[in-house]
Structure formats: C-alpha cells, structure tokens
C-alpha cells in the first residue's frame, strides 16, 4: 500500500514535470526574439571573437624530466625559473609521465633534459627539449622566447655560438592559431550567457506576470517546477554547443582530437551548473531586468577571468581564486583538454567534480530559497 502510493506519487510528479516541460517548449517556440537569440548569439560572437582576439605571461606551470641529474641540469632549471616565465610545479621520472600531465592540463609544458645533457652542450648540439601545449598561443610563444636565454656562458660552457639550447616540440596546435584555443572557450562563454539568462528570466517572468501566485497555489512542488523549467534549456544549450563546434570546425578548422561523448558529458555538467546558477538568480531577482543585470555580473568575470581571453597563468593570484569559483573556468579547461588535447574527464576530475557539486549545491539553495509562499 505504502509502495503503491509512492509509485503513484512518482507518476504524478513526472506528469507535472512533463506538463511544465511542454508548456515551456510551447512558450519558447512562440517567443521569437528568444528563439532568434539562441541561434544569433553564438553566430555573431563566434565570428567576433574568432577573428578579433589576441596578449605577457608569467609562471606557466611546467614539469621537468631530469635524466641528467647533474649540477648543470639543476642550473638550467634554476635559470629557467629565474626568468619567471615558468614555474616547475612537478618532476616526472619519465617523459611519458610528463606527456600525461600535459594532456590532462596539469602543466602547460614539459622540459626534458637528456642524460647526455653536458655532452650535448659541449658538442654544440641542442641541449634539452621542450614539449609545449600549443593550444594557447600566448603560452607557447612565451616559452618559445626562452630559446634565446643565455645559458652556456653563465654555466661556463664553450662554445656559446653553436647549436640551439632547446629543441621545441609543439603539441596540439602546431600552427599557433589563436582561434583553435578561442572556439572551445567560446562555448563556455555563450552557454554562461544564454543558460543563466534564460532560466533566470523564465521564473522571474512568471512572477512578474502573476502566473506564479497561481502556480504556488497548486500542488506543484518547487523542485518539480525547477526541473520542468530547466530541462528545455538543456536542449537549447546542446544546440548552441553544436552550432559553435561544427562551425568552428568548418570555418576555422579547429581540430577535434578528443571524444564527442566526453565533450557532451562535460557540456552537460556545465549546462546544469549554469542553469542552477540561473535558478538561484531567479529566486533573488524581482524583475526580468534585474535578472539580466545579475547575469551580466556573472558573465563578465566568466569572459575575463576564466582563461577565455587571457591565460589563467597570467592573472594575479586573487583573480585566480575568484575564477576558480566560476563554473566557466572549469568548463573551459575541460573543453580545451578534450577537444584540443584529447584528454578525458577521468584525467581532469577536479574540474568535473566541481561542476557536479556546484549543480547539486545550487539546486538545494534554489529550492530552499524558492518557498511556496508570498511572504
């Protein structure tokens, strides 16, 4: 008996969710301006950012594989760190480990010092090797400049003139095109904008028009209302992602190294996080205007601080902390990792877990704040 009633309670709940979902889809299809925005926003921004954006980076996190283990190899690492361009955040025993760290985005470059390092320098051959994540040209060009670093003279090795100090290997974006890095990030910016704006406006509109007073006098539960409201926008988010990624591939020839499933999973996580953020805004904002203002409040740091426009490593520490709070920062790391470096979510668990936790926490906050009363 108990079980039966929970079962019928579930079906009732599902039916109510479905009814809200259908209603939202109907209203969305009739709101032409919104419908146009779903398509036009990604198009315009893609062209704008794709063609227009390009900037000194410090303390790029790198790993070092020191097979030489000599005074000279340590002197090289110290000299490199002294430039402040890089910071050696880890050491790997083998180049494979360094490559793995590169792929998962833990470091942006790897310094490989071979066992015959001193011999090579004395022979005037190339001394060591840099493996660089080339997806962000700003990062790679900063490391490329290290090539000209005077080391032989300071280390007391002759002859200075012969042979390059480093052999450079660019991974992932060998032609050094910014657009390759911009496009996956753009998905994050556009989803932030549209997902937060649409959901926050959707609930606030009901309040403004007086629909909410009627709705809360019915048996519908806050959580049912919220789920029914956000599901349509998940589809909207996937449509936008599809538009940007396929056009990015067709027009700007952005490579797609990773798996589409992984990208969809990451996108699903991010859309959910953005939608719950929109829901929280909708429980605070009283008018649609306020809701869009709050959206912009979230959107600006998501563009400027997330690593979308400027490399994360170039930002002051305070800004880095702030940007770690934004779902967009984590999503951009995931997207660039999956699309450009073929990384997988399993290798980037911190970012994935953050997005998931953000969603759950956000839903709880939104449902708590949305009381079924007018108090």
């Amino acid at each position, binding site marked *: 008996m108990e079980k039966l009633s929970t079962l019928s309670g579930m079906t009732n709940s599902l039916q109510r969710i479905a009814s809200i979902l259908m209603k939202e889809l109907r209203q969305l299809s009739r709101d032409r301006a919104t419908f146009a925005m779903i398509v036009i926003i990604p198009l315009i921004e893609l062209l704008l950012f794709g063609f227009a954006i390009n900037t000194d980076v410090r303390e790029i996190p790198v790993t070092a594989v020191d097979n030489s283990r000599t005074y000279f190899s340590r002197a090289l690492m110290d000299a490199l760190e002294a430039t402040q361009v890089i910071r050696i955040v880890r050491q790997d025993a083998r180049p494979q480990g360094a490559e793995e760290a590169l792929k998962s985005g833990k470091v942006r470059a790897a310094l490989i010092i071979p066992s015959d390092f001193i011999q090579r320098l004395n022979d005037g051959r190339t001394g060591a090797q840099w493996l660089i994540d080339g997806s962000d040209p700003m990062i790679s060009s900063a490391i490329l400049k290290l090539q000209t670093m005077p080391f032989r003279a300071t280390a007391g090795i002759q002859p200075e003139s012969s042979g390059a100090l480093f052999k450079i290997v660019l991974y992932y974006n060998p032609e050094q095109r910014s657009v390759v890095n911009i496009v996956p990030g753009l998905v994050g910016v556009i989803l932030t904008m549209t997902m937060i704006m649409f959901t926050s406006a959707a609930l606030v509109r009901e309040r403004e028009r007086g629909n909410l007073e009627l709705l809360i006098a*019915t048996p519908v539960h806050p959580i049912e209302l919220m789920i029914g409201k956000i599901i349509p926008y998940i589809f909207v988010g996937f449509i936008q992602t599809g538009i940007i990624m396929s056009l990015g591939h067709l027009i700007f020839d952005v490579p797609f190294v990773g798996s589409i499933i992984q990208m969809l999973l990451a996108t699903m996580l991010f859309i959910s996080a953005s939608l719950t953020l929109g829901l929280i805004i909708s429980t605070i904002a009283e008018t649609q205007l306020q809701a869009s203002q709050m959206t912009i409040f979230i959107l600006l740091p998501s563009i400027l601080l997330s690593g979308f426009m400027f490399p994360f490593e170039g930002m002051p520490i305070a800004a880095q902390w702030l940007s770690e709070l934004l779902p967009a920062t984590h999503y951009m790391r995931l997207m660039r990792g999956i699309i450009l470096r073929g990384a997988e979510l399993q290798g980037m668990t911190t970012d994935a877990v953050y997005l998931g936790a953000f969603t759950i926490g956000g839903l709880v906050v939104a449902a708590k704040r949305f009381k079924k*009363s*007018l108090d």
Partner: protein
Amino acid sequence: MSRQAISAKGLTRCFGDFMAVDHLNLNIEEKTIFGFLGPNGSGKSTTLRMLTGLLTPSQGDVRVLGLEIPKESEALRQRLGYMTQKFSLYDDLSVEENLKFMAQIFNLPGREVNKRIDSQLTTYGLDQRRKRMTGSLSGGQRQRLALAAATLHKPELLLLDEPTSAVDPQNRRDFWETLFDLCDQGVTILVSTHYMDEAERCHSLAILEGGIKQAEGSPKQLMADMQARVLEVDGTELRLVREALTARPEILSSAQQGARLRVLITNTISEPEVWLRSQWPEEMKDRTIERVRPSLEDVFVHCTQQRRQ
C-alpha cells in the same frame, strides 16, 4: 447546524509596521457564498492569501476545510480553487492549452482530462475559442477562463479575489449565475469585491476597512441594522447644499446621485427631516426631503466613514 468551511480566530498579518489584517475572526458556513467587501488596501487580498496558505499569518489560528493552515496547506491545494486578482494564466498559451496545463498540474487522470476540459469549455462558453491565444481574449472571456481553470479539479472551496474588476455588467451577471450553480453543487465560495451589486448577491458578507471587520451579516440584515437614516433631498444646486451639510458631525455622509442628494444622518436624531429643515432653513427651502431605504452602499459608507472620523 451546518459545518464551517473556514474558521479563523485573531487572524493578523503585519508588513513591517503596517497592520494589513488586524485580529480578524471569521466563520464561513459550507455551501454558501461569502463576500469580503472593502475599499482597496482594506486587507481583502491579504486575508484570502492567508486562507490559502500563500501568506503566513503573523498571529491567529486558521482552519480551512478542517485543515490547519498554513501547516497543512499542501493538503488543501487539491481541494481548493483560487482565482487571483490579476489574471494569472499564460497569455501565450491557447485556451485549451492553459486548461490542459492546469489539469496536469492537478493530476487529473489522463482519460478524464479531455472530457472535463470539454465540459468546462461548454459551461463557461469558451468552446468556440478553444484554439484562441489567451492574450487575445476579452476581459469577460479571460475571467470565464480563469474560473474554468480554478474549478477544473472540482474544488470544495473557491476563493475569488476581485473576480470581476475587469468585466462589464452583463458578463458580471453571467459570472454570478455560474457562481450560484457552483454553490448549488456544494462548493463554498469566498469572494472579495468592492462592487456593491456583487456584494449584495452574497449569502453573507463582512465589511473590511483598514484590516478590521466593521460589520458582518447578510446584506439584508446589514441594511436593516444600520445605525443611520437615509434621506434624499431633491432640487437644483445640490453641490452648494452638500457643502453646507458636510461640516456637521451628525451628517455621516452625503453624495449626489443625479438630481438628488443622498444624506446619511446618525440615528441619534429622531426626526431627521425636521432636523434638516430647522438646521438649514435657507438651503432646504422649496425642496422635498424623503426618507428612503438604506442600500448596501449606505451601509458600506457608514461603516467605513465612522472609522475615518
């Protein structure tokens, strides 16, 4: 003795310093139409919202259909129909889609939904407009749709917040016919209004002013019990007469109605016609003064005037 659909004791609601509803006691019998009559801001909507559980009372006990409110307001939702003051269905859904949405929200069984919607559309004269966008309906049609939506799940109690404020008199008459039909079917109806003709149709009503109940009873009883007499003075230049009269406290109110001036005089004056002529011999010369039956508006004005003075 019939049962109470609603009972409230000491119902109070404050918004900051402002007391919107002040220790209201209510006993509303089942299967009757009960009216709240009061000017704007008298606490009618606040009271209705507290009775539905949408607002938490600052003080007081409320029982609606045997349920303790606001504690058990979720259980009340299925048995309650609520029509908000502002039209609150979706303008960008058609008539039929709005009803379907509400039917699903109330979990009407799937096979009954279409039948029930058809019968509601017929009852409320909307069957020709089922595909119309709700935003394009006239005031009267919107009102009928709102009532159709509020009664879709056959509630036992119907709360209507100023239901006919945007409706013409003919539509209002029709609207009330349906309310009496619903009442005959056993629905208890609570309606707030500031229209006298609407209030007069209620089985009983409470006059609210400043969040306080000023009077309660059937319209007939209220008119009979009024502590004032009503006289009509005819003639020309009634504006001047009115100005002369208003200064005195015995004159509770005066209002021109066409070629007549309707004057409310406190019943401490035993011969109001004589008193009028003796107090204002100049103004009352050559005019007929006639005692008339109090109307509900007189009762309302009397109740609300007393407080303002």
